[in-house]
Structure formats: structure tokens, C-alpha cells
């Protein structure tokens, strides 16, 4: 029997973690002489108080959904892919090449090819660490994080040489008009809803489809079963006839492809040209999102929206108050720390509390231990 009821596992623990993080953040804000309640109000209002806030929150959330799903599927096979950052950078390269190579007539044609390009490049970047893990036993945590640096250096190299647009800044040329993805403002404006100008675009729908697709894959297909079985016990999986090399490779390829898909939102949907550090740390936030979302697509979605709100609210906070930018990063880091790393701190007391609560009806009169 599980120690915790399901609702406590998926909702109560993340909620307590979040509240703890907010309390500590509030203390930090109070320490630097600002009003924590006012800061919280600005953050919440900035993130979800207007269509402008929602637009940016969901734009960031789209990035985090992709990278969160990438980490989540790897977790199911008990692989820790912390290379989302590098895979997303390569994905951005793939998307940029697709958008730059062909004079696209319409986004409906450009988007599927861009998805393919971003996914393939992301998957290819994950393939080498996956192969080394599967056949040589080189630990994937080490290899994927090393590949982040290689990806970043590769992108810089390309941006100052082959892909550089005329001018002084290291950036590629602008994508053609035909590859412009409709923004939420344009889509909702067409049906008469007024929405602020934000970079949120149709990639959000692709992200939702990816959540649903991953759920189908993990819980409704034979491959998903094999991935989960391998994650629970690799020895049992091998005994059952599951090929570990194949599962490691396939899982990591899907993971890398999902991370690479982030680029259709950030690069194709917003920046519309290839820039340096276009991933904005989403690859690492994806780890926190997957942890907080318990590696379930629905959980990943909710956690991604929360982190999107945190990013957008944090940006507003910096703009509205004199709280320095570094402080905003501290607040975001505290949330990641409490929801990701310090999970056990809340979990074990809560498990004890639930066990005690359950035992009492069976043995009345026995004092709690």
C-alpha cells in the first residue's frame, strides 16, 4: 500500500513546498528592506493579472512544458537527462536552418517541417550521450551536461561565422514572413477577443498535444510499458526480454526531440532569428518542472505554468520595484530548491502523519509512537 494517498502526493506536497519557498523568499525580501506582501502582489498581478501577464506566463510555460516533458520521459526510464539546455540549443539550430533555407509561403507548411527539424537536431544531440550510456556505461548525467557546453560553443561559432547576418551583433538573418507563427493576439483577435501583444503563439497548442501524446505513449503503448518497466527494474526488464540498449536509445531520442521542440516556441515563435543563449535556462528549469510534476504530463503542465508565472512575475517585480535582478533569481532558485531538492523534507513527516492518522482507527488506545 502506498504511504500517501494519491491526492497528497500530486497536490499537497507540491503545495506545501511552494508555500515554504514563498515564506523563505518573503523573509529574504523583508531582509533587504522591501515589503514582502507588496512584492507578492506585484508578482501575482504581473503574472496572471492581465492578458499581457497571461500571454508571457504561457509563453514561458510553453518552453518549460517541452523541456519538462523531455526530463520526465527520461525519468520514467530512470535516466537523468540534464542536457535539455544543449538539446534545445541544437533544436533552435535545426528550426533556424529550416526557417532560413526555404522561402516558406505559409506557416502551416513551415511549422511541421520546423517541428521535424527541431526534433531531429535535439534528438541527434541526445543520441551520443545515450549511446555512450547504453553501450559503454558512461554516466548520462556527466555526458549530457558536458554536451551543453559543446552545444553552446557550437552555436556561438556558427553565429559569428556561417550564420551571421551583416552587422555587428552575433545573430542570424530574420526568418521569412511566411514562417511567422500566429500569436495569441492574432488568433484571438480574429474571433473578437482582445489580447495584449505578447509572444505567446500557436506553439502552446503543440505543447499541449505533446503532453497528451506523451501520456498516450507512456501508458497506452507497448513501448511506454517497456520504458516504465525498464525504469522500475532494469534486471527484471531484461529478464522479460526488453533490450536495455534499445530502450535507453529510444527514450533519450524522444527526450532530446522534446527538448529541441522548445525552439519552435522561442526561436520561431518569438525571436524569429537565431540568437545566442536563446534557451534562457529553460533546459534546467525543465528538471524542476519534471520533479514537481511527478513526471506525469498533467503535473508537468501545471508545474510549467507555475514556473512561467514565476518568470513573468519576477520580471515584473524587477521592473516595478528596486529589488535587484539577482534577488529575483534567488527567489526563483528557492522555489526550485524547495520543490525539487528538499522534497524529502516535507515528504517523510507528511508520510508519518498520514500513517498515524490511518492506524488510529485500527488500534484505538495505542499511543502514537
Amino acid at each position, binding site marked *: 500500500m502506498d504511504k500517501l494517498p494519491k491526492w497528497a502526493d500530486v497536490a499537497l506536497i507540491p503545495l506545501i513546498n511552494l508555500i515554504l519557498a514563498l515564506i523563505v523568499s518573503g523573509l529574504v525580501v523583508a531582509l533587504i528592506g522591501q515589503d514582502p506582501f507588496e512584492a507578492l502582489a506585484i508578482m501575482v498581478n504581473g503574472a496572471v493579472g492581465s492578458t499581457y501577464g497571461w500571454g508571457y506566463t504561457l509563453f514561458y510555460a510553453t518552453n518549460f512544458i517541452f523541456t519538462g516533458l523531455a526530463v520526465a520521459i527520461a525519468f520514467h526510464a530512470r535516466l537523468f537527462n540534464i542536457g535539455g539546455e544543449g538539446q534545445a540549443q541544437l533544436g533552435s539550430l535545426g528550426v533556424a536552418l529550416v526557417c532560413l533555407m526555404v522561402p516558406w509561403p505559409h506557416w502551416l507548411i513551415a511549422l511541421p517541417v520546423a517541428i521535424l527539424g527541431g526534433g531531429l537536431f535535439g534528438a541527434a544531440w541526445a543520441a551520443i550521450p545515450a549511446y555512450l550510456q547504453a553501450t559503454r556505461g558512461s554516466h548520462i548525467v556527466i555526458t549530457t551536461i558536458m554536451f551543453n557546453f559543446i552545444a553552446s560553443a557550437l552555436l556561438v561559432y556558427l553565429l559569428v561565422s556561417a550564420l551571421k*547576418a551583416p552587422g*555587428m*551583433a552575433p545573430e542570424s538573418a530574420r526568418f521569412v514572413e511566411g514562417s511567422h507563427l500566429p500569436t495569441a493576439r492574432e488568433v484571438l483577435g480574429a474571433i473578437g477577443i482582445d489580447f495584449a501583444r505578447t509572444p505567446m503563439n500557436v506553439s502552446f497548442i503543440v505543447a499541449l498535444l505533446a503532453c497528451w501524446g506523451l501520456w498516450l505513449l507512456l501508458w497506452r503503448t507497448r513501448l511506454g510499458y517497456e520504458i516504465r518497466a525498464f525504469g522500475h527494474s532494469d534486471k527484471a526488464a531484461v529478464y522479460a526480454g526488453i533490450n536495455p540498449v534499445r530502450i535507453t536509445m529510444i527514450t533519450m531520442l524522444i527526450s532530446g526531440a522534446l527538448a529541441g521542440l522548445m525552439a519552435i516556441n522561442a526561436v520561431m515563435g*518569438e*525571436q524569429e532569428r537565431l540568437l545566442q543563449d*536563446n534557451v*534562457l535556462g529553460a533546459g534546467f528549469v525543465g528538471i524542476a518542472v519534471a520533479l514537481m510534476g511527478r513526471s506525469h504530463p498533467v503535473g508537468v503542465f501545471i508545474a510549467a505554468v507555475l514556473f512561467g508565472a514565476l518568470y513573468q512575475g519576477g520580471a515584473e517585480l524587477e*521592473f516595478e520595484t528596486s529589488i535587484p*535582478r539577482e534577488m529575483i533569481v534567488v527567489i526563483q532558485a528557492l522555489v526550485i530548491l524547495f520543490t525539487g531538492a528538499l522534497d524529502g523534507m516535507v515528504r517523510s513527516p507528511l508520510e508519518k502523519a498520514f500513517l498515524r492518522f490511518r492506524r488510529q482507527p485500527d488500534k484505538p488506545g495505542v499511543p502514537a509512537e
Partner: protein
Amino acid sequence: MTTMKTLLGAVAASALAAGAAMAEPGLIIDLGGKFDKSFNESAYNGAQRWVEDNDGADYLETELASEAQREQTMRRMADRGANPVVVLGFANGSTLEQVAPDYPETNFVIVDMVVDQPNVQSIVFAEHQGSYLVGMMAAMASETGTVSFVGGMDVPLIRKFACGYAQGAKAANPDVEVIANMTGTTPAAWNDPVKGGELTRSQISQGSDVVFAAAGGTGVGVLQAAADEGELAIGVDSNQNYLHPGNMLTSMVKRVDNAVYDAFTAAAEGELQTGIVVKDLSNDGVGVAMDEFNEDLVTEEMMAAVEEARAAIVSGELEVHDYTSDDSCPALTF
């Protein structure tokens, strides 16, 4: 009646002031940090000076977090009603090109880059002229006959500094050798003092005894390394002479602070001119920093030569080649 008039006048004046205060100017500090002791800090100081000179005036300020957030930051500034929005550095060029047309009511000011939009003021500096003057001083102060240059990111703008410097050095001493190195090819090169210091030590080991840094935050490491080795250094953008008294020959000041101050002042009076504004030696947009920290290092002879060259440049008699005009330099090969 007179009292009434005065009162009405006061009310009208305060209403006007309120109207002006609503459109606060905005300043976006670029990558490299607010206190880089150089480019960004100069802009920040200009904004602060404007606040001091206009009691109770305020402005919106934010610091850029990453290359990819330029557009969001710029739009947010404009959405908040900041007018004008001042952005620093050439890297904002292509973003501003896209953003400016969406906010026809807002004026933008961009430093170091020309953006051809009806609501944009583009401020460019004649860095080659100021660099020419410090190049002359460097060659005259050098005992080894070798002077050097450390640039930030390898872009035409920084080559323009290096080219002016080399021309000045060769004008003062035709036999001088000029070594030029760039820190990197990406914006990270603006904030890499460690690498700046390494380049400086390498140049000193090649015989250089005067180093000119045009590298934003990286320059801090260059000046430190030169001071540690007991050689002379030349600062850039802000007056950096105070950093290492006794080792700072001078600084090539680029009055970004004046540019920001002037833009804020003009906008408050409703007189901001769009189009290209050139700040050069003739309007003190660039120049050579002289103060109590470097007076012992600068000889009468140097001062006379610099004054003469400055007058010749201002009058048009002497023309310093601008690297960005044809992407080549007669005095230096990169």
C-alpha cells in the same frame, strides 16, 4: 486678483509638471552590468545627473538579463509609457528596428548604432578621433616603442577604436609598433576581466608598455594587469583614471552620460530630435581625461601635441580614418 493669478499660474505650472512627469524617460542598461566602470556606468551616471538636476524627476530603469530578452524588455519599457526609451549598444539595432514601428507615439534613443526609423534618435560617437589623441599620448609615453590595444568583442565598432589609436600612435612616432588583440567574438567578451588581464600580460611580454583597453567590463582586468606589471594603461568610455593612480596615462572618455542626459533633458522639454546625432571632438562627445590622478604622467609636450591635433581635427585640417567607413585600416592590420 494678483494672488489669484499667481495661484492659477502655480496650478497650471504644476499641471504641466505633472504632465511631463507622467512620461518618464526609460533607460535599459545593457549586458555587462550597471557598474562596469565603463560604458553602462557612464550612461547610468548621466541618468543620475539628470535626476539630481531636475528635483523630484524620476526615470524607469531596468537591466537586461540576456541576449534573448531584448525585445521583451524594450516593449515592456514602451508599454509602461516610458518616453523616450534609451537603449545602449549596437546589439539592440535589429530589435529596435522591429519594435520602434509598433510604438509610433514613443521616441527611442539608441547609442552606438544607426536605426533608420522616424521615431528613433541614433547617437554615434567619433571614437576614432578620441582614440587618435590617446594613441599619440601612448606613443609619446612609451619607452619601448611598442604600444598595445585590448578590444572587447571583435566588431567594426571596436576596430574603429583600435584603428584611431594606431593612427595616433604612428602620427606621434612613425616607428612605433602597435599590437592589437580582441577578447572574443560574442557579447561575453564585454565582461571577461580575466581574459583581458591575460591578453595584457601577453602584450607586455611582447614589449608593450602602454595598453589601451576598449572592452567594457573586461577593461577592468586589463587596467589591473597593466598596473600589476608596473606599466601604463589607458581607460575608456568613463574617466577611469582614479582606478590605478600612477599607472593610468589617461582615459578616452566617450560621453555616453552626456548623450543620456541630453536625451532626457530634450525629451522633458518636448524637443527630442530624431535622426542621427554625431558626438565628436568638436562638441566634446569624445575626449581625453585629465585630472589629479594622471597629471604627473602627462608631460607638457604631450599636452601640446594633443591640443594641436585636436584643433586640427576639429577644423577639418586633419582627418582621422574611420574604420567603419570602409572596413579597413591604413595603420593596423587585424
